């Protein structure tokens, strides 16, 4: 049980950090980094999540069990996205008929 009482100053600093990161992610969106835009947005969002989890949700002060439960949740989410994505990414690898997006049945001479 998180008996630990966090100082108010810590909370305010964490809050300011979160605001800063929000500004950052919005600002970065105005720069054309190509595919990196997505990576940047995800990294910033992930770090904001960590701040909220560690300080606001006391995970930094709570026991290992809570951390294992949280990591399990994130790992299972990664499982769902990763394995499903593996199907979509490799679907056009084999020389199957042209990419699946063509809708019209063949016009035949």
């Amino acid at each position, binding site marked *: 049980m998180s008996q630990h009482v966090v100082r*108010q100053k810590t909370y305010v600093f*964490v809050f300011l950090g979160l605001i800063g990161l929000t500004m950052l992610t919005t600002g970065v969106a105005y720069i054309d980094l*190509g595919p990196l835009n*997505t990576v940047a947005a995800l990294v910033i969002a992930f770090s904001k999540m960590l701040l*909220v*989890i560690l300080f*606001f949700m006391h995970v930094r002060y709570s026991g290992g069990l*809570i951390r294992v439960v*949280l990591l399990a*949740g994130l790992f299972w989410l990664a499982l769902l996205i990763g394995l499903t994505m593996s199907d979509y990414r490799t679907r056009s690898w084999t020389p199957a008929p042209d990419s699946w997006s063509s809708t019209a049945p063949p016009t035949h001479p």
Partner: protein
Amino acid sequence: MPEVEAHTQPAGLAHQFGDLEQQQGAATLGIWVFLVTEIMFFGGLFASYAIYRWLYFAAFEGGSHILDIRLGASNTIDLLASSLTMALSVRSAQTGNRKATVAFLIATVILGGIFLGIKAVEYDQKFVEHIVPGLDWSPEGNILARLAPGGLEHAQIYFFFYFAMTGLHATHMIVGMGLLLWLVLRARKGIFTPSYFAPVEVVGLYWHFVDIVWIFLFPLLYLIGGRY
């Protein structure tokens, strides 16, 4: 007659627990397991979003540029502020400061209300622009021009995800605000003490989770590709 428990029951201790600490530990573990089920519940949506975003990136980028980034950003800051006030209310419940707990809880509810208000404005904008999949999907004018290149069908999928994800998030917000109001009533009666504040911590963890969902929704929906 079952013989009476050796010690009289401390306030708020349920009969199946040995002591308050075990009960608090069970409550915390319980909410965390519940939050993991919520991660998987939203996870199904995020996985589908990720798949279609990879398949129809142009349509998603087109749709994302139609959203108003100012409203999105201000909503994010508003929700982060509500997380701060929530954390402070849990802290004041922990330290037995009844008035501060109530004040911060009310602040959290107000910030939540502001968030939903901004959301309502955005939704109304979408209805005016006729880009609500399923109910009123007939974009025209420059909206149509910006959506057409990525393929209108695929743009419809983007807006379906916009409404599904933000709608599910808003529903969780409304449930959260209901819980907060219930906490306000109990906090005013001084039920929460430094040894019994589990309900406040549980609702706090739930609120922070809903905030984290928005922390991901904002960049994933509003900031697709560069806005240049």
